């Protein structure tokens, strides 16, 4: 971060790589599958919003 740079003069870096190792990808997928199975009986009910938002 450059403190001299104007506030919020944002730039994005499109050249940055997003290359996880296969091992990392597999680990995250396993975590997600396990988490979803653990929560499936209550999560959809806990996240209900009354009709008519926005």
């Amino acid at each position, binding site marked *: *971060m450059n403190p001299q740079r104007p506030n919020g003069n*944002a730039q994005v*870096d499109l050249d940055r790589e997003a290359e996880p190792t296969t091992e990392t990808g597999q680990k995250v997928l396993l975590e997600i599958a396990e*988490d979803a199975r653990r929560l499936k009986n209550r999560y959809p009910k806990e*996240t209900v919003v009354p009709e*008519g938002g926005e």
Partner: protein
Amino acid sequence: MLFGRLLGQETEYAIRFAPERRHPGNDVIYDALAGAIAARVKTEPGFYPERPQIFTENGGAFHYEYLPYCAEGGLIEGATPECRGPAQLLLYQKAQETLLSQAVSDAERTLRSSGFPGKLGLLKNCRDAFDHVYGAQESFQATIATGFPLSLYRLLLGGLLPLLAATVVLGWVVFIALAVLVLGAALLSTVAIALPPFRLFRTRSFFVRLVSREDRSLENALGRFLYALSYLVTLPFIASFSLLLRLLAFRRVRRRATAFLVSRPVISGAGSVTAGGEFVLSEKAPSIRRRLRFSISPNDRSIFDVGNLMKPALAAAHFHVAPMLALFRREQRLQLGLADSSMLQEAEFLKAGATALVLEMVEAGALDDAPRLKRPIQALHAFVSDPNLEAEAATDRGPMTALQIQRFYLEAARAFVREAKATSMEALQVTELWREVLGALERREMSSLVGRVDWVTKRYLLETCGDPRDEALLKTIDLRYHELKEGYAARLERSGCARRLVEETEIERATRFPPEGTPAFTRGRFIRDRERSLAPVRISWESARIGGRLHGRVVHFSRDGEG
């Protein structure tokens, strides 16, 4: 100048609270979150005392989206400061999410100490397990009309002022009559239940039931009644104003950009599993019913949501005429109701950047040959119901798929950016990303878009981690994808499976500093620099009131962020 216009986003977050004992109500959770945010950054309360809202020192805001018929079931809404360009918008959207993510743990502790232990989470999504729709809206500065149509718009808007005045007077008469009625009933019931014949029943008074935090049925019934009443009272004005907007507002944008917006979910949809188990590309799109909003009902979902123009007119009921007068300006806020909440940074950047570029082109007259859909709403529903991306819709150029329509707009945008007088790196980045994503979709190289396009990523997770026979599991993956901090999109990002376009340090800084050259800059600086010990302040998007309502001083924020 490309990307010179202001843009911003409003995002509704669903609240998930898994109580260990009892639920405190979402309004109490909002208070805990707002308190936690105020402990981290400087904040000031919003203009209307009856509306729970805080403005933060980066120029953005949070408020409790109160549902009049379910006071305890509302949502948290975050509004970014006004930004210039998609990179800035991405940065401030992430800053908003960071503030909320940090506040969740603190709010959990506050709730626990108030007797409400439980697990708190916030979902940045637009559709729940019962297909109730809420969520995001995008805003872009745009020209409402030019030349003769602008003069006619102003003339007709002026002609509506007597009707607005009559609506305000009628509204107050009804409100006062109702207040007298309710207070009278409360007083009578309080006295009555103390009398011997009724004391035996041990009933609670009307007043006690109305203010009860345990049983809010009476409060909600009254809210529902007031909501219906306000709908009826304002109907003549709102219907007339809607007709005026339909006739003259943003006509050029509606004509030239509708096909872009209708096909846009292929690059920016969040994806969703409907209550019927069908996978659709967008959370919001299946609920869209018309091109332009016609009423103040939240169920009147439209591609172009002009509710933001109706609200300032109705602010006259609170004796605030400045918002109404601002409706005469040439430049207005174009609000898109057809907008999903993006989780992935590339998706957020591309959605805002491509849309802003299309608006630039429309206003520059560079899209006069854009395809026009014959039945836009049917086309939208057909496009988002087909993850194979083969659905076609009738246009004035014959049947076209969503990808073909996007290809038309992309090529027009590339030529527009190439020929622009001043080169914009940001615009080049947008068109390059758009080209990459669209090309991969056309070649059906879906695996290359995991971690980059939300609906593709969510579908991949559903197929990899779900079970097609287990609807509850699929819906859990669909919903949990959107949770801040612990959600699946966040996990993909943390593990490097989804690309980050902005630095964490920049995001952290954006939670405290407003974007320069925007109205948010003066608003944010005002909040940052104010001495805490001075007179109370209330902030709106346009101004700050220092001191009381009658004797206070009003400071207007500069629209270009200077002064």
